[in-house]
């Protein structure tokens, strides 16, 4: 708030300020460019890839990269380049949905525990702490094995597993807000608790929720890719990257590097891109 001219004071909304700050953040813009690229590939990739990503062509299996097949072909003769381009689709559906679920659940829990305090807070907070001490991948593995792997299961399990972390962030933000005058005023007006929590406090704790949600999106992509690699995430015949690595890495000793390298690099760029966005958002809100 240092050397900004005061003429814009009247129409400066927090949201507009945030967008302006994000536009200046090179970290955010770089991350957003990467994410946008993969979103476009997910939406329109299948219209411009040179080959059908699902079509077998056994005669041309395991060809190294060439002019016809830029990234080579896999063991069923499918074009790796086409599969990598289209492969962002499922992970970019599953991971964001899991993040949304975690954010909604976590925010609700955080508002309730932070606003009511007392016994409710104590019990839920202890359960959350205990829950957070359990490694996420392990929990997810168990639940998915028990329920059978499906997209819906993966979304639910990751959403549930991430919600305590978001709940903790929201709770600590709410603890600071609930002492402020506008909450006291709302209580004096005899607004009901539900309205105070969601109508009054929630808009004021949105910034930390936004930061936490973008960070969680990075972890969700990490988790979905890992589960797919282990065969418990996205299921065949999807050209998903983690799944492709999992079906091809057995032949890595034979020197067929192109069947796993490009998918791995694709995951790497997406994860780094989302983390750059998270860094950028956190930085912009700090200013």
């Amino acid at each position, binding site marked *: 708030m240092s050397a900004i001219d005061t003429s814009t004071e009247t129409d400066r909304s927090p949201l507009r300020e945030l967008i302006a700050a994000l536009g200046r953040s090179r970290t955010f813009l770089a991350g957003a460019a990467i994410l946008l690229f993969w979103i476009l590939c997910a939406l329109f990739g299948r219209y411009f890839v040179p080959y059908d990503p699902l079509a077998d062509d056994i005669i041309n299996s395991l060809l190294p990269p060439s002019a016809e097949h830029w990234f080579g072909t896999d063991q069923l003769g499918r074009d790796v380049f086409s599969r990598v381009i289209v492969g962002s689709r499922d992970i970019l559906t599953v991971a964001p949905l899991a993040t949304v679920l975690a954010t909604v659940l976590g925010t609700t829990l955080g508002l309730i525990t932070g606003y009511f305090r007392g016994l409710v807070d104590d019990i839920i907070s202890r359960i959350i702490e205990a829950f957070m*001490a359990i490694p996420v*991948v392990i929990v997810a593995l*168990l639940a998915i094995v028990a329920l059978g792997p499906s997209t819906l299961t993966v979304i639910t399990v990751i959403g549930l597993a991430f919600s305590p972390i978001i709940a903790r962030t929201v709770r600590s933000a709410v603890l600071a807000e609930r002492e402020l005058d506008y909450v006291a005023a709302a209580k004096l007006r005899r607004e009901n608790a539900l309205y105070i929590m969601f109508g009054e406090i929630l808009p004021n704790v949105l910034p930390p929720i936004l930061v936490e949600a973008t960070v969680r999106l990075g972890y969700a992509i990490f988790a979905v890719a890992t589960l797919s690699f*282990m065969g*418990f995430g996205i299921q065949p015949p999807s050209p998903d990257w983690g799944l492709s690595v999992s079906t091809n890495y057995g032949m890595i000793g034979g020197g067929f*590097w192109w069947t796993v390298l490009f998918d791995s690099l694709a995951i790497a760029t997406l994860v780094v891109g989302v983390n750059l966005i998270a860094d950028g958002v956190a930085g912009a809100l700090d200013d």
Partner: protein
Amino acid sequence: MQLGNPAIVAFILRRIALSLVTLVLLSLMVFFGGQVLPGNVGRAILGPFADEASVQALNQSLGLDRPYIVQYWDWISNFVQGDMGMSYAFRSPVAPFVLDALANSCKLALVAFLIVVPLGILGGIVAALNVNRPIDRIISLGGLSVTVLPEFVTGIVLILIFSIWLDWLPVTATWPEGAGLGTQLYHLILPALPLFLVLFGYIARMARAGMVEALDSDYTRTAVLKGLSWPTVIRRHVLRNALLPTITVIATQTGYLIGGLVVVETLFRYQGIGSLIYTAARGKDFPMLEAGILTIGVVFALATLAADLAYTLLNPRIRLGAET
């Protein structure tokens, strides 16, 4: 002595109680996931074409026709006494498999920690002494970028570089029967590297933050002003204050390490607890899966408990001041 302080005793007791709650919660989840959700275990083992009578007989012989609460109590009290149940796949007790695998995983984790802890701290120190210079940027940004990558991605790239193209290290982590320590280490370096990459960024960042804060503090300025040599200031004043938070971070990273082990052991075909869980999960060998997960939970709870207690005893004012 600090142990005489009632506040600290109360904190330690609370912390132990919390670990117990965690373990009970985990055991309930494991039981629920392993024995309630899968539904008819007898049907799952015998397949869709077995007749109803033999399915029921198998369920009865496995004790699965009893009420859940009885099954849970039976299972957990046996587990506490070291009886982890019978594997569906091997038709023999689970415990020896789990303990063998745990020992193997500890070897791998130890190698990873032995590489990452000194290098991570060193990286953080070097970065902090060169704040905002290129070397700091490389360590901080590079460390953070590899930290966020899934282990199987870094693992694949490392295998391609070091085993396939350079041919320096073996592709699998399994060494020949009766191999010496040197050979075992040789096989463990490559699997330890993805774990190293995940942990390096966190440890270096914590060490850097602690160092930067300590370098900026009044006691460091005083030490410099009273004429101590710069290396002495670093050793006696900065490092001591900077490394305490780093030690806790290292201990809390066991959780990430355990998650990473499942992936890394699968990728490198290493017979650890992670690949045991993976194999059991694929084969729906629920007693094995439950035992593996609960064992990991116990190890993890003990590690974080030990880290928290050590930190509290070393530095009680921070821990007890942060009561929420």
